[in-house]
């Protein structure tokens, strides 16, 4: 942080632009480039998941060749895994707050717990997919199957990428290789993580709980 400050004093009057985005004064809006682009990206992701959810809603009733949603969903199990993902949002918030306090130890700790909870969720999903498969719902069994696996699979991939990002942040934080503002790096991963959680809030209700 100290050298950033030095840098600011040196260049505040001359520098303007991209490469100066760690210096809040350098941007026209005073907002960080990174955070702005993360929010834009999340806005864009709304349209991606919207398309997948709509496709599922359209096709959820089309399952002549195999089991339908009512026969196959295990609500208690999914509730538990939804709860786990929800709690990982809490641990993520705690990580962000620790990072803002420059408390590296707790940041790493909470990030690790978040990643573990995420892994538990993905594990639950793998278990769910396997048991559905054994009950006769393959990816190509019916339109319901294809659209269900596509939607939840995309979400699962997002969670998995999130876990990788969390672990990378923990790893490079311990090695002190983060270039730039640590708290912001943690915050950015946090935004992504919460978004993935929020998508699951919608999927849990629309896909699992509302009877078709």
């Amino acid at each position, binding site marked *: 942080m100290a050298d950033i400050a030095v840098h600011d004093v040196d260049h505040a009057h001359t520098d303007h632009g991209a490469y100066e985005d760690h210096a809040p*004064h350098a941007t026209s*809006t005073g907002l960080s480039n990174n955070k702005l682009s993360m929010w834009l990206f999340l806005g864009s992701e709304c349209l991606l998941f919207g398309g997948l959810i709509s496709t599922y809603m359209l096709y959820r009733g089309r399952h002549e060749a195999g089991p339908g949603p009512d026969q196959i969903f295990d609500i208690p199990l999914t509730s538990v895994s939804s709860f786990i993902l929800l709690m990982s949002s809490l641990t*993520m918030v705690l990580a962000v707050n620790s990072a803002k306090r420059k408390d590296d130890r707790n940041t790493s700790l909470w990030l690790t717990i978040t990643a573990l909870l995420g892994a538990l969720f993905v594990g639950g999903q793998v278990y769910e997919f396997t048991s559905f498969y054994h009950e006769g719902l393959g990816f190509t069994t019916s339109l319901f199957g294809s659209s269900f696996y596509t939607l939840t699979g995309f979400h699962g991939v997002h969670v998995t990428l999130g876990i990788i990002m969390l672990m990378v942040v923990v790893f490079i934080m311990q090695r002190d290789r983060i270039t730039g503002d640590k708290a912001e790096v943690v915050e950015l991963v946090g935004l992504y993580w919460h978004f993935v959680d929020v998508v699951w809030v919608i999927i849990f209700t629309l896909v699992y709980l509302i009877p078709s």
Partner: protein
Amino acid sequence: MSAAVEHTDSATEANHDAHGHEHGHDGHVPKDSYFIKIAIILAVVTALETSTYWWPESLSAAATPALLIMMAIKFFMIVSIFMHLKFDSKIFSFMFYTGLGLAVFVYLVFLFTFQFFRT
């Protein structure tokens, strides 16, 4: 669109002048205990959501609207509190809610043209 951005633009600039730098916003971000309280509320709502699965037949007509409302509550609590949208620059809200709003609008119309809401 631009008017909104322009407006928040200057608001942020004023803000950041006052605080000296962007993390001035973070001053408003609550303590850990606040987030834990929010998480407890979210957990309770989730439990309520799950309970609809065991609701008696007579209540099933109310289940769908109740679930949608609870979903919206959870969604906006996470987005505005956990993701700090409430405490942060309005520009971020503009970015995200534009995407969200477009998605809701476009896909509702999409499902409508398939007569999805007819029954």
